[in-house]
């Protein structure tokens, strides 16, 4: 997979469970346990440095400081035996040469920034005294405490209720404008992508199938999987039978020669089962991995209406 991200931009990585979207993020942070996993080839260039070539020590300096991450489950990603204040201060002091008092001031600032009322008091409390939404705010505060240039958010709102999800997305958008952070937003929910991203990368079975900016992907999707994904969304005006993608995702433990999506694809031909399509740029900043969606050949999309 390939993508690039500019300062202050948000890219969405969207895919279903097992599509490898979370692996991507851990690869960037260098958190993939090795063995069994390893980055086979390629590079991750962050501000001119190739992260895959850095030592563990150098990586540790970047992690949490310049690149930080928000995880899916706010209930388990905070350590229950330390106060919230402790956990924020720890991160700040780990990466910045400040004394305890300055770190504390900074922690209070951060809690205020993410919209937690009475931050001085909340600093002394333990994670179990916070609700789900508040914990996710704390996670964001920790992630942003060192002014990272890149924030990786792995399903940050999946475990939250819709009304709280709306708050958190709003908060992330506001903070992004204020702090000029770039965000990689990993999600299974296209709605979240429409809400918060400029670019989107669609993954299927560990591979990128389409990469475009959000408006382009919505108006002019090219990969048959993206079509299926868009069609399967239930919208406020959906009636009648839901268009769905038949079949199930492939079992990646088996060797698959051709396009991973071919067995579920209505447009698949013989070539699709034997040869893996490369990701190619078919129009400006729009890449797709399909044998029959190229610069000079297009499939006709059937079933499920395109968007207006």
């Amino acid at each position, binding site marked *: *997979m*390939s*993508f*690039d*991200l*500019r*300062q*202050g*931009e948000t890219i969405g990585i969207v895919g279903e469970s097992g599509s*490898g979207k979370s*692996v*991507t993020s851990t*690869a*960037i942070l260098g958190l*993939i346990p090795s*063995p*069994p*996993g*390893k*980055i*086979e*080839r*390629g*590079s*991750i*260039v*962050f*501000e001119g440095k190739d992260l*895959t070539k850095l030592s563990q020590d150098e990586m540790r300096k970047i992690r949490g400081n310049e690149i930080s991450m928000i995880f899916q489950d706010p209930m388990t990603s905070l350590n229950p035996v330390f106060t919230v204040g402790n956990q924020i201060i720890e991160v700040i002091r780990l990466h910045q040469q400040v004394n305890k008092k300055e770190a504390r001031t900074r922690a209070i600032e951060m809690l205020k920034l993410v919209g937690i009322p009475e931050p001085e008091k909340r600093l002394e409390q333990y994670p179990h005294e916070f609700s789900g939404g508040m914990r996710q705010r704390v996670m964001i505060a920790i992630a942003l405490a060192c002014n990272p*240039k*890149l924030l990786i958010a792995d399903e940050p709102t999946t475990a939250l209720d819709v009304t709280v999800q709306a708050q958190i997305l709003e908060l992330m958008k506001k903070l992004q404008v204020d702090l000029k952070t*770039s965000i990689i937003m990993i999600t299974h929910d296209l709605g979240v992508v429409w809400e918060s991203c400029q670019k989107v990368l669609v993954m299927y*079975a*560990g591979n990128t199938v389409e990469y475009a900016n959000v408006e382009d992907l919505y108006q002019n999707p090219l990969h048959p999987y993206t079509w299926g994904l868009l069609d399967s969304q239930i919208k406020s005006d959906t009636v009648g039978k839901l268009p769905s993608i038949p079949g199930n995702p492939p079992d*990646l*433990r088996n060797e698959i020669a051709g396009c991973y999506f071919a067995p579920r694809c209505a447009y698949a031909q013989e070539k699709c089962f034997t040869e893996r399509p490369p990701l190619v740029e078919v129009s400006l900043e729009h890449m797709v991995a399909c044998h029959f969606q190229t610069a000079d050949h297009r499939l006709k999309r059937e079933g499920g209406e395109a968007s207006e």
Partner: protein
Amino acid sequence: MSNQAQNISPVSVPLAAKKKSKENSVWRRLLKNKLALVGMIIIAIMVIFSVFAPLIATHPPNAMDLANSLSEPGVDGHILGTDNYGRDLFSRIIYGTQISLIVGIFAIGLGGMIGTLLGLVAGYYGGKWDAIIMRLMDGLFAFPFILLSIALMTVLGAGLFNVILAIGVANIPGFARIVRGQVLAVKEEEYIEVTRSLGANHSRIIFHHILPNCMAPIIVYATMNVAGAIISEAALSFLGLGVQPPTASWGSILKDGKDFLVLSPHMATFSGLAILLSVLGFNLFGDGLRDALDPKMKV
């Protein structure tokens, strides 16, 4: 906004390698584990020894030959020498395997069955049943095993069956605890609620759904405790509370051997070695079984 802050170029992570193959059966995982294999071989040898004892033994185990007492290993066709009554030590150890295995398996079977049943009831019904059963188990746990055995033997008299009974009873609380813990976890699984919603009664839920899902740790615990039971049997026999002479038992050979430790160390050495190896075998096998059944499981 045009400065290229981050650029991530082709990275491919082998996903397939990350997933552990589930198809590997328990058996195949067990065979891959070298230590478990060693354990399995030891157990297999023990089983062969006890089943074919009359064929393997070079002499009748109880045949005394006072003229040749305490002979060195290798002398006169006595592979491991003879004991203080001139009985062939090798043959006695072979026959002792029978006793050790019978006691180990039946005692754990007995304790396991009763303990599992009690644990199931305590864990599933909870409340006062749980309180009564588990306090009883605590009491049993607190009672020293040897004292319990002495008391039982005094009342019932020594003998193979009573040895099994004593060791079995001593093993009840351990099983009860482990099963109760498992039941408490499995009880909360959604499929148990599903089964209730289908209209199933308690016994069906307990025996068709909860018990099978608690089996893995029970089997592992039982295997490990066979080793414990073998030691217990040896200990009881060593104290003269176990299998009565002249029947050969590792513990009683060890006991006889301790009087001749300086003169003829082979008696105590070989019987002790037999105990050590069998315990090691069951423990290695149990460890391997645990890893094979569920790598995440902790007993």
